[in-house]
């Protein structure tokens, strides 16, 4: 949808888009900086004023792909996808129930779900590490998937409840009259109409898991180490900080999320505007 005044002069259109342009530059510049640093020759990285013109080198990417960092990315993706799917699946059912059925203390339950998000990770890190040890899941993908799912579910429940609330009840009642049971009404009528919300919840859950550092730092050791933790292990050593390596590693980490976001961008735009568009 284009809200820019059509048929005006190029200058007027430029003024219209100017704020958006400024915001985009502010947000995109760090990404650009990291991309630049990842291909800078090592000798130029710490130069001041910074250099923007140089012949790119690929050593840092070679280093990333030869280091154990790749395993960490694999771990990150497994954990992010696993926890996103688990939390969004549970959140979809929870949000539907909260949207459609009246029951006692519903508001309290909604607030309690939201309050999960207010919990700082550092507060629960010791109990979590004990709990994980008790059930013999230390340093496993499963443990991280479950813990991230708990942390991310509140966001998804609230997002998806908003989507379900917007579906007119009559759409579902018509299906009930047609002879469908509650599960079929959910699966055939309600769920297809909230796909944009589901896509948004999946992307956000994945991003939150991929970026998480503290819990992963404490709860993983070798076999389930995630990318943000590996970043510190591999590139910050007693020999100093390898800025070029960290930048290349960061770019590699951005790739899977960006790819997924591009695939579902149509739904994402609707999702982030809470179904207000089109």
């Amino acid at each position: 949808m284009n809200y820019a005044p059509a048929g005006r002069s190029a200058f007027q259109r430029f003024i219209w888009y100017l704020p958006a342009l400024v915001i985009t530059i502010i947000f995109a510049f760090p990404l650009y900086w990291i991309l630049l640093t990842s291909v800078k020759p090592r000798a130029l990285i710490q130069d001041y004023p910074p250099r923007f013109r140089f012949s790119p080198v690929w050593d840092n990417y070679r280093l990333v792909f030869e280091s154990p960092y790749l395993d960490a990315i694999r771990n990150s993706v497994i954990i992010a996808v696993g926890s996103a799917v688990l939390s969004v699946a549970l959140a979809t059912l929870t949000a539907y129930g909260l949207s459609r059925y009246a029951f006692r203390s519903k508001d309290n339950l909604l607030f309690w779900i939201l309050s999960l998000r207010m919990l700082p990770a550092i507060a629960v890190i010791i109990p979590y590490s004990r709990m994980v040890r008790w059930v013999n899941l230390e340093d496993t993908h499963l443990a991280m998937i479950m813990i991230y799912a708990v942390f991310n579910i509140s966001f998804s429940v609230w997002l998806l409840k908003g989507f379900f609330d917007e579906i007119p009840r009559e759409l579902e009642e018509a299906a009930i009259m047609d002879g469908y049971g509650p599960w079929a009404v959910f699966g055939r009528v309600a769920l297809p109409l909230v796909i944009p919300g589901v896509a948004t919840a999946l992307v956000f859950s994945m991003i939150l898991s991929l970026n998480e550092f503290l819990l992963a730092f404490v709860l993983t050791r070798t076999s389930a180490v995630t990318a943000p933790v590996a970043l510190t292990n591999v590139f910050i050593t007693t020999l100093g900080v390898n800025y070029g390596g960290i930048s290349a590693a960061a770019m590699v980490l951005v790739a899977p999320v960006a790819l997924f976001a591009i695939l579902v961008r149509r739904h994402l735009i609707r999702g982030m505007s809470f179904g207000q568009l089109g």
Partner: protein
Amino acid sequence: MATLTLTDLSLTYPGGVRAVRDIDLVVADAEFCVVLGPSGCGKSSLLRLIAGLEQPTSGIVRLDDQVMNGVYPGERDIAMVFQHNTLYPNRTVREHLEFPLRARKLSSSERYRRVADVAAMLHMTDLLDAQPYQLSGGQAQRAAIGRALIRQPRLFLLDEPMTSLDASLRFEMRTTLKGIQSELGVTTIYVTHDQDEAFTMADRIVIMNEGSVLQDAGPEELYERPKNLFVAGFVGSPAMNLLRGAVYGGQVIAGGFGLPTGDAPVIDGQTVVAGVRPEDLVIGHATSGSTGRIVVVEPQGDERIVSIALNDVPEPLIWKVRAPKPNGSGEYRIGQPVAMTVRHGCLHLFNGATGSRII
């Protein structure tokens, strides 16, 4: 195809609103029954109770001899068309028509045959592959009606299905709907606040207000013998003139009229309300008549709706009369004095205290 019986049916919402109060109603097999009432009168709640989308607080819903209380709506074999568009944005017309058939796990050849039949009946064969956004309001409502009728339900419920359509389309849809209903012979309950819809389609009209049934009769009886003041004032356009007055010496004295009570069971001094339909007023100096002055003349094609101010009566009297000859002489003018009386035998008389009909 079935007979619907409601016994002592009530619905009180959790907030304490008594939407439906002690309703007893029988809708016979193949009958077209219209539930008519102002908005908020509980007519939609009544329909939802029959459908099973609401559970009654008390009372019994029966379809033939089968008690429906507690039966899941989808298993009652009742179809319903809702007030608002209930088409799914991601499905074509054909998929909508097939939707209830898939719930019953019909074979694809049977589905195909039934879709073709219903589409032909509703003149929608060309639109089977259209998406909802490509349909006009009338086409969308036809698709919704087709979706309800395709599985040949025992009972067909419609909740103000024409509210969102424009006037000419409503007229067309009324004819289509009535035709289909009598052809299929399906028991139908149609809820509306529109009298024209009610009177053109109904075999029987149920008037509701504040959760109760006020009269349940055929269209003619409803118009000619309204059972109480609410029905008298609600049915008819323009509405019946209602003049509050008293009985004195065998006459109803109201609005300057002195109308003979005939053999009505009334006593001297009793307060009554005299009801006169606008088309039952006639010009003429009679002893029973009253005089007034014309205040408004509304031309309506070959008719005039004339408002007449009477002495000592705040509301003007409404008179419906054929338009004068086109040469312009004899047109009604504002300010013109008129003397009128009530056509013989056309007086409705209601009890002034209870509002129920006397004659």
